[in-house]
């Protein structure tokens, strides 16, 4: 007999994961269908990793309301779910008179959006707080509630919590079409049909395609690519805050920020792009480099360890597109920046909309709202020794750059949403994130995965399906 879910969420990026997390609190049968072989493989894993304070969106918009609310929630959730998050505050720099006027506008907007603690700083204050900032700086807007987060771990933690509370996750299940059986939706995916009473469209860069499967076209996604540098930890303390530039007519500016891992992130540019084109370009990187040097001239780009690019799910709408667009079909679309920040607030708001649409929400009594992870390198000596005596695998360091142990890698392979690729392990443990970029630990993680999962090393993939690493044994054919 076919199962009919109460809600099917399409897409498991940060928005889908937050939605699943929120709905997992209620007595509901929820399924999440995700195109990729892991959660958080799109914009969620390739962005600035910032929890925005909320002075940027225009007052009165959904973006403004959900940003400020999401910023507060991110702090609570990351604590409960053991997600790396640091409230380090942000500075928007001004370099001339026009910029200073912009700061005033942002400051006023921030007050209207109820952003706490905003302060305008003069040049000296800025340079005192951040000595590496260009002496050309004229002033700054300081937002102490801004923070940095590990965005994919945030998403994974939300999705894992949902799964632990009974939400089903179907990976590698790209949606091909949506139809109706009687009163219910029939979602045809690459891994079979899914039946559900309600659909939440959280398909990110593909949310217009999903929308158009059920409703009249009403918006279109305009993917915008942003390119980044990730620098070695030796550059990680170059600045202490998230350093923004003033948005102008032509650009939103390039940011420089520490990451929760202790690296320095620099980017992004903004270029219209294809939905899946996350390639780096020399023009894009040149632009980011020179723009960032305007804020922080001393950045040593020779200590770059990785470039990457992400696709913003921008749309032809200025605000987030959140609403019921067909009966029992909810769009969470065009979730561009500050989408990462707003995600948990979007989910709360979305649950209300579903309730208004007739979905009964009754709280579970046994909902699990906490998560704990072993992060070996952060433990005290006593805790380390206790852990190793319980399980010696925690005493074997596999990733030298980030000090990730075999025990943590095994944990990732048997977690609620198990890693199934080298990069899946990386997103859960940080292995291969460091300066050698997996040169040393890659082969050893492959070996551990092969052993733990009981599959041949040649079947282990780097990341997405088809990203094979090895092409066969050296001596097999001839022997």
């Amino acid at each position, binding site marked *: 007999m076919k199962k009919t879910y109460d809600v099917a969420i399409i897409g498991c990026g940060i928005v889908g994961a937050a939605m699943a997390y929120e709905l997992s609190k209620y007595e509901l049968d929820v399924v999440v269908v995700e195109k990729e072989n892991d959660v958080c493989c799109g914009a969620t894993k390739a962005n600035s990793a910032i929890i925005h304070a909320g002075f940027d969106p225009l007052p009165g918009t959904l973006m403004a309301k959900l940003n400020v609310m999401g910023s507060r929630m991110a702090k609570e959730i990351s604590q409960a779910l053991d997600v790396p998050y640091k409230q380090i505050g942000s500075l928007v720099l001004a370099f001339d008179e026009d910029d200073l006027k912009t700061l005033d506008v942002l400051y006023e907007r921030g007050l209207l959006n109820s952003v706490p603690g905003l302060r305008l700083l003069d040049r000296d204050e800025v340079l005192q707080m951040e000595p590496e900032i260009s002496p050309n700086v004229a002033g700054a807007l300081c937002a102490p509630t801004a923070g940095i987060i590990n965005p994919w771990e945030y998403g994974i933690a939300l999705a894992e919590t949902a799964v632990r509370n009974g939400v089903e996750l179907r990976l590698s299940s790209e949606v091909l079409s949506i139809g109706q059986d009687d009163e219910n939706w029939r979602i045809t995916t690459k891994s079979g049909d899914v039946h559900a009473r309600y659909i939440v469209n959280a398909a990110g860069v593909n949310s217009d395609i999903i929308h158009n499967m059920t409703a009249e076209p009403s918006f279109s996604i305009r993917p915008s690519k942003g390119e980044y540098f990730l620098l070695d930890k030796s550059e990680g303390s170059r600045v202490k805050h998230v350093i923004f530039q003033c948005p102008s007519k032509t650009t939103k500016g390039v940011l420089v920020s520490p990451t929760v891992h202790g690296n320095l992130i620099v980017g992004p540019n903004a270029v219209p792009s294809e939905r899946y084109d996350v*390639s*780096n370009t*020399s023009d894009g990187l040149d632009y980011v480099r020179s723009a960032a040097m305007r804020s922080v001239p001393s950045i040593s780009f020779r200590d770059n360890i990785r470039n990457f690019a992400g696709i913003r799910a921008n749309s032809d709408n200025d605000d987030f597109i959140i609403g019921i667009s067909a009966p029992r079909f909810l769009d969470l679309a065009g979730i561009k920046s500050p989408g990462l920040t707003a995600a948990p607030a979007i989910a709360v708001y979305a649950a209300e909309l579903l309730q208004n649409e007739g979905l009964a929400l009754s709280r579970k009594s046994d909902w699990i709202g906490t998560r704990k992870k072993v992060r070996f390198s952060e433990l005290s000596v006593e805790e380390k020794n206790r852990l190793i005596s319980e399980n010696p695998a*925690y*005493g074997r*360091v596999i990733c030298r750059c980030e000090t990730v142990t075999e025990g943590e890698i095994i944990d990732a392979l048997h977690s609620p949403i198990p890693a199934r690729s080298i990069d899946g392990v990386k997103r859960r443990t940080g292995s291969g994130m460091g300066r050698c970029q997996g040169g040393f630990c890659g082969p050893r993680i492959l070996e551990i995965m092969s052993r733990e999962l009981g599959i041949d*090393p040649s079947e282990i993939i*780097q990341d997405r399906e088809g990203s094979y690493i*090895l092409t066969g044994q*050296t001596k097999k054919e001839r022997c």
Partner: protein
Amino acid sequence: MHDLIVIGGGPAGLAAALSAWENGIRDIVIVERDKELGGILNQCIHNGFGLHYFKEELTGPEYASRFIDMLNDTSVKVKLDTMVLELTPDKELHIVSSASGYEILKAKAVILAMGCRERTRGAIGIPGTRPSGIFTAGAAQRYVNMEGYLVGKKVVILGSGDIGLIMARRLTLEGAEVLACVEIMPYPGGLTRNIVQCLQDFNIPLYLSHTITKIHGSPRVEGVTIAKVDGQRKPVPGTEQYLECDTVLLSVGLIPENELSRKAGIEIDRRTGGPVVYENLETSVEGIFACGNVVHVHDLVDYVTNESLKAGKSAAEYILNFNDPTGNSVSPEHSDISDIRLVNGVGVSYTVPQLIRIPKNLMVNSSLSISDPDIELSDQLQDVEVFFRVNRKFGRSRIGVSLAGNELARFRRERLAPGEMEKIRLPKSLLMKCLQLGLSEIEIYAVDEMTGQASADNANETKITAVSQDSARRIQIIRQDR
């Protein structure tokens, strides 16, 4: 407290520990993060090792096993599968292992022998997609030689470092097609013998002054665009060509692994990426020595061995002195020491050592009286071997050594190339001269005698006479043709 802890059980750590043992130290611990000793030699299954040191041709594992066998006859303790998490300036080591958990060891002396790591794609910022199928040459070498797996069928190699060249041959022998080796510089990065034996012998084209401008494909590499570069190493528009391949190997340089050293407050030389060392391989932190690729990247393991033997001996002297502080001071107090700094002049990228320590008592009464030339040249002063690399290709040339702009020694070479580490021996008479003149810098530079390209300040032979005919005559000029 241990006498000596050696961090790393590769060729440098093995030789250093052995040498310390041979020089009288008995309480020695080697800490190695891998499951076996030998380091990167274990995956270097090709031959060509040991020609200088053992005077015979060995494979990497054979070379390592010679030292491991010698160590087995000593009481040197080895902690395998053990990671050093932290080293403090007062020589405390925080280590962790499955077998013993988290421990803190303390030692009188420490030898850093952590080796190096490979530069990655991020470090050179190649545009394009980020598919699987991109390996550093050493990672590919491990998969092929240690794990027994092929990494691809059609391969392009970026960079012409030695590991990349060796892997070009290895992958060809294993049945892959190596389409090209692409080098951004106008000269190869690796040893000439590897260019001949690994590329030319297998008809693998080497594209000098070329680079990969874009990587194509997702989720696996499908091809690369390569292009010629100009003198500023910028791609020349219109010279692009597309090579279809499923694998890219990167052999774009090695970086000494000095995260532990940095945290211990050891001064790092930006040019080498390794600690600044004295002629006895002591770092800026007293009692912490360093050798091998953690100091500077060597081409030949034989040279690593020699350097490490010296470090082991120096550490042994330090420990013996430490044990007997009232005895004859082997390493005098720093206030009694005069440092001479070696400066890389035109054509030279760096020198190792960077500093030479000279006991000041040698200067007493010597002032500028040089009438008794041999008195001061006591056992306390020794010739100093200096290693360096040039920063471009040279034809017939000379390496000059100057004090205050006066060339006092020269060494002839038929050719010089950045891919080949050079060595000269600074005679102790020259160090003495430096002291007598009250100078604290010695400059080493390279001059192409065919083109006459040189520094304007240096290499002016007439100036030599200006210092002191007498002393200049006594400076030994070594002719050491390769």
